[in-house]
């Protein structure tokens, strides 16, 4: 058996997603459901998920609510401070496309108008089960990204970089 540190790191990455939860102008409905995941009923820590407050330690960015012209800078900033590999989850009807606020004068729209989103969770608000499921789906995407990293001509890392570039433009 060969000692393969990369494989171990990949295992670790999939078993310890630290989530940064950002309320981007949400009504708190989605936020309450997110925090419900941490309670003894759902207990996301059993999957190694920790709700961290620091983008520099986070792996998954969980955004709830519409993006407006005030906080789009903050959202972008948080995304940029997270180290690779990372994933973004947009939460609730507002996070998807602005929801009932979509045509308000101050609203930019969904989260994907500012940063690239990996998983969309519909609902107003989504159930805690759906949020946990979203993190699992995001991990699947992350896994694909990590596995393709050292394959020849792998697109994911490059695509990731391009995505970032597009987001910066």
């Amino acid at each position, binding site marked *: 058996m060969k000692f393969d540190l990369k494989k171990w790191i990949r295992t670790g990455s999939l078993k310890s997603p630290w989530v940064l939860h950002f309320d981007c102008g949400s009504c708190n409905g989605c936020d309450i459901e997110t925090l419900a995941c941490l309670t003894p009923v759902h207990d996301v820590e059993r999957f190694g998920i920790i*709700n961290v407050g620091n983008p520099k330690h986070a792996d998954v960015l969980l955004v709830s609510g519409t993006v407006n012209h005030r906080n789009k800078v903050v959202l972008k900033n948080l995304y940029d401070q997270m180290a690779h590999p990372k994933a973004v989850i947009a939460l609730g009807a507002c996070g998807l496309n602005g929801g009932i606020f979509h045509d308000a004068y101050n609203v930019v729209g969904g989260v994907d108008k500012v940063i690239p989103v990996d998983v969309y969770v519909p609902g107003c608000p989504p159930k805690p089960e759906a949020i946990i499921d979203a993190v699992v789906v995001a991990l699947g995407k992350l896994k694909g990204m990590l596995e393709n990293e050292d394959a020849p001509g792998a697109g994911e890392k490059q695509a990731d970089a391009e995505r970032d570039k597009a987001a910066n433009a």
Partner: protein
Amino acid sequence: MIVKLFFGIVGLAIAPFLGGLISGLDRRITARMQSRFGPPVLQPFYDVLKLLGKTPSAVNAWLILCSYFALMSSAFAVFLFFYQADLLLIFFVMTVGAVFQVMGALSVNSPFSQTGAQRELLQMLAYEPLLIIVFIGIALKTGSFSIESVYAQESPLLYSMPLLFIALGVALTIKLRKSPFDISASHHGHQEIVRGVLTEYTGPQLAMLEIAHWLDVVLILGLCSLFWATSWVGMLILIVITYFVEMLIDNITARLTWKWMLERVLLPSMVLCILNLLWLYALK
């Protein structure tokens, strides 16, 4: 000499795994105390492996240097412990690591990092005198600062220095950053000062500090084990009981302020220490 060197190297090789396992068990038992299921016992290893694989994004070179020094000095302190070296030397080596960690946190402008660093200094101010006095007590009893002389004792140190053991327990709680002394890194409430002293350490640097923390846990539990150095079983039981009490305290108390720590904890512990020292002196 060769045997001691062997012990030192083997101890240093085992310590990170032991520390990680203790940390995993801690998280699991803590979860059970809160009627949650809790993460796998190997969770701390997954966390550290993941952090090692993250893209490095330290904001300056100091952070990287300081995390290396913190890890090295923790590792060296653990080596010295298993090498059965001088207690004072172990103490100074351990302190160097803690100081470097604070220096790294102070080298950036983040207010959270700065606050955390100041609070970490206050925590050091609280646990270091306690540790030193415990070592002085050991020296008074055994006549030497060397760990070897502790193992040469015929009856457990706990009989003659129970109050000093309580003080060491307090120092352990502060050093482990367990509630109510979780003031520099807010371990349970990640949001409060966004991990304080650890805010600016990211990816591989954070992983190194995590490993250094495991080593510190092993070292301090090792120091506790010196109080029942006459038998392996007694040593193990003492460590298990001590750590379980630590977890219990961690779960039943809220975080308190640094002022409370200095006034209500450091001062009474010092009184306990001095009473015990006087008693040891009278017995002589």
